[in-house]
């Protein structure tokens, strides 16, 4: 392969080749990071919550009738409401809880345990009723809440908790977590772990999406309540249509807000979907522009060197030799750009990790990007290189 003469000849057109090398490098750096961000967003979207998302709906109310000022009335009404919801055909389970999957937040606290060295942060949700049946999560170790776990007096703190497997593993490794105690500060009531749920994921800051404590408690007061309802598959539409009328028939002095968890999930990922669309557009545009740049440079190279090509043909170059020459020249330019681009890709990733994202670059992505741009470069050069092979050797004897 005539690398030497081609490289030496390219040195005389430094600026032109430097421009295209830089363009390829920037393209690789941006494309790999854009793909990295797309994959990260997709990974988040495909992360299972562990819940029956498609069959979950929440209904919350805000009262305006005067009787809601009495806590005892609210207490009795919530029980009636839950029975009313249960009576709707297609309803599988219902609970009161402020926890809504995929709302992109919730409540959390800093905790200590009897054996964990230091403090830890985890999500915390109070729930009453069939919370785990409603979410579609199984208690795989220990037991679920029973009605007596919730103190009659709402001012008395609860003494038990059910936590996620991920949190148990973080705190106690493979040891049995049942019976261990968690507390949120000096003098606070300790909560004993009575059960473990295997699957839990709710996106949350500080990377605590898999860490949760459920406590038995009231997710309602004189200002309103939130019910989480699980329907039979395919019954969502009919259940949603009946929820408000049923609860209004119990007490009409309130307004309702119904949100399907699948809508909440879509809303949560709307930003991510936008990122994916924007990044995809950037990738397509950049690769297209780079292809145009390479095509332009290749066409110019052929147009400028018509006599040179004719001379090479006269001196014995076959059409295949001419094709090889231009493809090789492009390969060298593309490779130089890609080498620079690898540095750019990791450099940009370091910048993004420090400012925007926490996803580190994977070498497979860089390798894939290089292959893509190698193919892109090759395909973009082929038309001009093919034109070069059609230059007749008789051009060599033309005086102009």
């Amino acid at each position: 392969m005539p690398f030497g003469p081609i490289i030496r000849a390219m040195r005389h057109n430094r600026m032109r080749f430097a421009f295209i090398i830089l363009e390829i490098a920037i393209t690789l750096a941006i494309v790999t990071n854009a793909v990295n961000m797309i994959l990260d967003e997709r990974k988040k979207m495909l992360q299972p919550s562990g819940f029956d998302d498609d069959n979950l709906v929440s209904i919350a109310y805000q009262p305006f009738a005067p009787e809601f000022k009495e806590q005892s009335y609210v207490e009795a009404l919530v029980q009636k409401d839950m029975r009313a919801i249960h009576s709707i055909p297609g309803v599988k389970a219902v609970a009161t809880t402020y926890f809504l999957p995929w709302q992109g937040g919730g409540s959390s606290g800093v905790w200590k345990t009897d054996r964990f060295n230091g403090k830890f942060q985890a999500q915390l949700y109070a729930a009453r009723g069939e919370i785990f049946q409603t979410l579609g999560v199984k208690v795989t170790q220990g037991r679920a809440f029973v009605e007596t776990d919730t103190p009659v007096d709402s001012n008395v703190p609860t003494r038990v908790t059910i936590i996620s497997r991920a949190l148990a593993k973080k705190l106690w490794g493979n040891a049995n977590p049942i019976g261990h105690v968690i507390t949120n500060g000096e003098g606070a009531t300790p909560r004993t772990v009575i059960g473990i749920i295997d699957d839990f994921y709710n996106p949350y800051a500080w990377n605590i999406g898999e860490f949760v404590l459920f406590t038995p408690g009231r997710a309602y007061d004189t200002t309103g309540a939130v019910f989480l309802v699980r329907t039979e598959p395919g019954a969502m539409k009919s259940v949603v249509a009946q929820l408000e009328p049923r609860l209004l028939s119990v007490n009409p002095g309130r307004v309702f807000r119904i949100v399907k968890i699948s809508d909440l999930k879509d809303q949560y990922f709307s930003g991510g979907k936008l990122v994916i669309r924007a990044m995809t557009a950037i990738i397509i545009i950049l690769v297209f522009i780079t292809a145009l740049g390479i095509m332009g440079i290749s066409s110019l190279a052929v147009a400028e060197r018509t006599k040179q090509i004719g001379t090479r043909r006269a001196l014995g170059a076959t059409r295949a030799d001419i094709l090889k020459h231009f493809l090789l020249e492009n390969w060298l330019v593309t490779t130089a750009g890609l080498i620079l681009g690898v540095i750019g890709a990791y450099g940009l990733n370091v910048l993004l990790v420090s400012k925007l994202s926490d996803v580190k670059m994977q070498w497979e992505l860089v390798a894939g990007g290089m292959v893509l741009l190698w193919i892109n470069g090759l395909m973009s050069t082929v038309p001009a290189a093919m034109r070069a092979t059609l230059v007749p050797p008789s051009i060599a004897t033309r005086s102009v």
Partner: protein
Amino acid sequence: MLEMTHIKKIYRTISIETHALEDLSLSVKAGEFVSVTGPSGSGKTTFLNVAGLLDTFDSGSYILDGKDVSRLSDREMSQIRNRTIGFVFQSFNLIPDLNVFDNVDVPLRYRGLPATERKARIENALSMVGLSARVRHLPSQLSGGQQQRVAIARVLAGDPKLILADEPTGNLDSAMSREIMDLLGKINDNGTTIVMVTHNAECSERAHRQLHVFDGRIADVDRPRVVLGSPVATPGLTATLN
């Protein structure tokens, strides 16, 4: 070495048909130094293109170095141009981005010779034309005469049996022209056949035989009444030869 019989070459466009070579016949023996002269548009360059397999012809036959080259594939013609023929062009046709060494190396690479052999051939050829000290120079850093000597070194490195020279002194002053003609003379003395197209009478006289092309036919100046390949001289040609 070169045997052309009744060669015809016609250039066609949508509206015009130009008979560039009309029933051209010519024989050049191995070791001969033949010059070809003729007015502009007479067909000299077309003759050179056909003789050098740079262009095809429409009819007739062409035997080069004992081989019928009338109907060869593009690849076969490339191989013959590379191994059997050496070209010296009027405007030198050096690759401007390559230095002297790499320019001389161009045809050798297409021949697929190993690097050590190529290096030896290049150094020997550049030594023969007196440019051993300029191997790293670019063509733009050389005079016209030096550039033509590089072009001749490129031919010498390939050790061809036939050299086709197209106005080799056309872009040079008289001193440089003599230098190049001396060089071609020496190469011919070593047994290489040379066919040279030229406008320059002085250069033409350095050849063993002088041919004249007119209206696509060729005539031997030493035997002006015979138009090779044609039984009767055309009036125009006769007038020119007389």
